[in-house]
């Protein structure tokens, strides 16, 4: 089983590396990711949400629904742990 796992891992690694050839270099300011959507978060956040911390405004306001989903994920984990392990007091 182990050599099979090793082959699968190496193949995935090579495929991933092959995928990174066309990616922008590390930290260059005009990579697509920092040009297309995020400039608006940085420039407009004080104007629109009066919150200087852009991460908090993006987290709770622009993409607030993701954070609701995230909190539901951690709530599911709590309910799962209670369901799976908690033994009622005999």
């Amino acid at each position, binding site marked *: 089983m182990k050599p099979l796992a090793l082959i699968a891992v190496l193949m995935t690694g090579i*495929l*991933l590396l*092959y*995928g*990174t*050839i*066309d*990616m*922008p270099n590390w930290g260059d300011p005009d*990579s*697509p*990711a*920092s*040009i*297309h*959507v*995020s400039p*608006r*978060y940085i420039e407009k956040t004080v104007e629109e949400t009066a919150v200087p911390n852009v991460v908090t405004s993006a987290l709770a*306001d*622009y*993409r*607030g*629904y*993701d954070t609701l*989903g*995230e909190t*539901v*994920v951690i*709530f*599911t*984990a709590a*309910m*799962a742990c*209670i*369901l*799976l392990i908690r033994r*009622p007091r005999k």
Partner: protein
Amino acid sequence: MTLPFPILIIIVPLITAFFIPIVGWWRRGLCYPLVIVALSVSVVSSIAILHMVGEQGTIRYYLGSWDPPWGIEYVIDHLNAFMAVIVSAISLLVAISSKRSVERELPQKIVYFYCLFLLQVTGLLGIVVTGDMFNLYVFLEIASLAGYALIAIGEDGAPFASFNYMIYGTIGACFYLLSVGYLYVVTGSLNMADLSTILPRLYHSKVVLMAFAFFIVGVGLKMALFPLHVWLPDAYTYAPSAVSALVAPLMTKVGAYVLIRIIFTVFKPSFSVAVIPATTILSWVAIIAILFGCILALGQTDLKRMLAYVLIAEVGYIALGVGLANKAGLTGAILHILNDALMMACLFLVVGAILYKVGLRNVHQFRYLHRKMPITMAAFTITALSVIGIPPTCGFFSKWYLVLGAISAGRWLFTAILLLSSLLNAILFFRVIENVYFEPADAHHGGGHEEISIDEAPLSMLIPILIVTAGILSLGILSGKIISSIIEFAVPPGL
């Protein structure tokens, strides 16, 4: 003023899931009705949305009133609304039938079971309705996490099967997240509609190619496509009967929906068919999945494990429909999502009823079951005919469109294998039916049959089974109308 239906489908079951632990402490008996009310509200609102989409076309709902590439948006077209109706209707029926079996298997933990049940349904509905790639990952994680926990409370082998399911499921979800990351680096946006406009320029970049490959592997893992299905038989066999009735019909179908959405909406067919032969590879994998599922199902004696392998074959049908990448094939695939959800729901509900009433799993011990539980076994027979593909039932029509798609794509081998798999299904199910209905040859010498009183499944299990069986029959007849009104527009353009 029109109610904001797109958000109501998700929010009502979600908020009820938060209230259930509180209500559960106060009065335990109130949880079950609360679940039924919440799911019926989401069924009604999803039908209302299907109606609105029929009139106005695609509905867009901006979460937090931010316009798309910046905020999260809900895009609901015919395919979404169709899937939302299927998911909410089937989860309502399974919720109704879960009352008795949960009270027997998990007496103290009903409160937390129903809370996780609702969270799983909310996660599935969230995946189906969203139009944002990362939001889909969040709701995928909610659905799978609730699934891992629900499966782990089953019988003896359940925790280990759920652990394996978790390892494979996490690898699948992380591959999906990685592909979203690869697309984000090259395009800068997370919104599906926005991506489908930016990507055509980048079709020849290696990053997009790898992102597409890891999307297929990640979603294939979630959908238990053939080489990636290893976790499914154990997970669905050892799960409690109410959970396997919920997870079996829905989890794989929502995975199939995500596959269709990625191949045909985010990446235009011009990429997934022309640039790289993704759909041809997918159709070959699907063919192996169909054969593998049917043949392995022959070897099983435990009814639930046999149905798990039949489910792998059914996922193969849907993947084949998607792989054919022509109008007839895709209509067959989308229709098969509906039909297979109905069939698997009915089969697992019947298995749950048998387990609840008689506690038998081995197929050979089912003699005279038709006397003890006539209605349940009648429903089982009708669904078996539908899986095989006999005309009046809905299974026939989706296979018919798949065969049509295979012929129009000029793949005669696929048509042959489709018919062969129907034959294998026939052998499979008639073996069970023969055990149930007909006495074995050596039993003739005995005296008259001892009198077996009719001991039918409780009403709360019987009604959902009857509704689903009626659905299988009526949708078979109505499938022409369904195709012309819904699936006609659900099939992505440009095929």
